[in-house]
């Protein structure tokens, strides 16, 4: 009886300690990376390379996601709101949903899959092939060289991507609204902008910056701590995507709560 009771307790204890260890490790890693952002030398070329990788090469997938999300949102809203004769609010619902929630979250999930995995795989491969040790022997701090530029690039690139996603998502909704649902273009657009406030856009962009930080942090942390060859790098890549996706959804609630309270 005691063994039955003790085993689950031991399991819970081990899991809790493991979670604390990982959380502490990520937090220390983040602190060190951020400290390198404000101390020279600065690797502007690496920042620029990461920025292009995130902002430019993620644009197609984010754009497609946003356009289709806007289209689906307009259709679904129409289906639901027609039951209450509230079709005229569709444009507002689409723009507020996109700008406050769906734009930042869906764009970030897409970027997490693309960039988080890429960071983890690249840095993980560098770890298992001694390239990170080589950096140290070449008088270069790996955190400053590999992690800090990626973090900064993601924090700056994500709000820009989300801004584009917001615009394209609204256009998707407008397309369905005018072509399929019979809205007058000018009226749809007027309704879109009448109810949109600065805070809606601002909260979405703040979320995007936070999510960008999380994506880059988890991608680089998982890669930096990968072990054991190809299998280790594969595991790090998977962990980076899963962890950043879950954190994005959890932080989305936290940030929404904070902005909602305002």
């Amino acid at each position, binding site marked *: 009886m005691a063994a039955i009771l003790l085993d689950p307790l031991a399991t819970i204890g081990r899991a809790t300690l493991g979670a604390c260890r990982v959380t502490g490790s990520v937090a220390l890693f983040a602190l060190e990376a951020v400290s390198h952002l404000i101390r020279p*030398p600065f690797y502007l070329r690496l920042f620029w390379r990461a920025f292009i990788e995130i902002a430019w090469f993620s644009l197609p997938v984010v754009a497609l996601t946003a356009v289709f999300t806007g289209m689906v949102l307009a259709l679904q809203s129409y289906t639901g709101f027609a039951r209450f004769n509230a079709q005229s609010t569709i444009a507002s619902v689409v723009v507020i949903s996109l700008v406050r929630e769906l734009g930042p979250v869906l764009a970030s999930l897409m970027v997490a899959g693309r960039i988080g995995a890429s960071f983890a795989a*690249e840095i993980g491969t560098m770890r298992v*092939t*001694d*390239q990170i*040790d*080589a950096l*140290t*022997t070449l*008088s270069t701090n790996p955190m400053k060289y590999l992690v800090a530029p990626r973090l900064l690039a993601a924090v700056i690139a994500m709000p820009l991507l989300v801004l584009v996603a917001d615009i394209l998502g609204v256009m998707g909704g407008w397309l369905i609204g005018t072509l399929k649902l019979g809205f007058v273009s000018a009226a749809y657009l007027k309704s879109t902008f009448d109810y949109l406030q600065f805070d809606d856009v601002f909260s979405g962009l703040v979320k995007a910056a936070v999510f960008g930080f999380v994506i880059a942090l988890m991608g680089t942390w998982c890669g930096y701590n990968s072990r054991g060859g190809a299998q280790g790098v594969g595991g790090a890549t998977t962990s980076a995507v899963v962890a950043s996706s879950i954190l994005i959804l959890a932080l989305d609630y936290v940030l929404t709560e904070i902005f909602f309270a305002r």
Partner: protein
Amino acid sequence: MRDTSAEQGLGAAMAAGVPKIRVRGLRKAFGPKQVLDGVDLDVAAGHSMVVLGGSGSGKSVTIKCIIGLIDPDEGSIEIDGVDVLRMSRRDREAMGDRIGMLFQNGALFDSLPVWENVCFKLLAQNRISRDKARDKAAEVLAQVGLAASVGDLSPAELSGGMQKRVALARAIAAQPDIIFFDEPTTGLDPIMGAVIDGLIVDCVKRLGATAISITHDMASARRIGDTAAMIHKGRIVWTGPAQSLGHAGNAMVDQFANGQREGPIQMELRR
């Protein structure tokens, strides 16, 4: 590389009590496994030491402790009489500027062309402009027998032997006074291995550097080493002239150098 004058110099340096690298009582455990169990090592300035030992005996960990990639649990590591483990982080980084390292698999940066790999340290420290770095890379590549045009290739386009040469060029480009070689001939055919050994001997001699090499290749050890040390179960069990490997008069060294199955070193097999 080894000659009578080298041995006399080694003896004189040791007698003066100022080895370039002095390791005392180095201990390091990973979990329950005690990898280093009191390593003592002296390397005289301008000399080349080869560290031998079976897989898992602690050779690489010893070198990584000296370079600063791993923090030992106990012991001291002195370079030019200064204990590097007691240095501030900044001083230790400055000490790292004087050290070069050739990794076993080259560890070239995939994302950079060869010329940028070669001049990485100089560029990172702003000791050279990017324009001049190309010329400098061509100069160093020539020292390891590679054409300047190789500088524009990516590491993935190079053969194993060429990658080792580029890695050697990167290790010596900043003209370090201590160089570490981690199994420099592993994975190379015997002729290319001899070529790399020759380049290592030339480069170390030209720079007047102190070198520590890890190798399992006895022919390579005799070519590049002035002295040799054997590490077994985390301790140095023998040091002596590299030329005596194979007939050192130490049962462990002779068994290892001659590749004999029977002897004091027993393979630990997991069942």
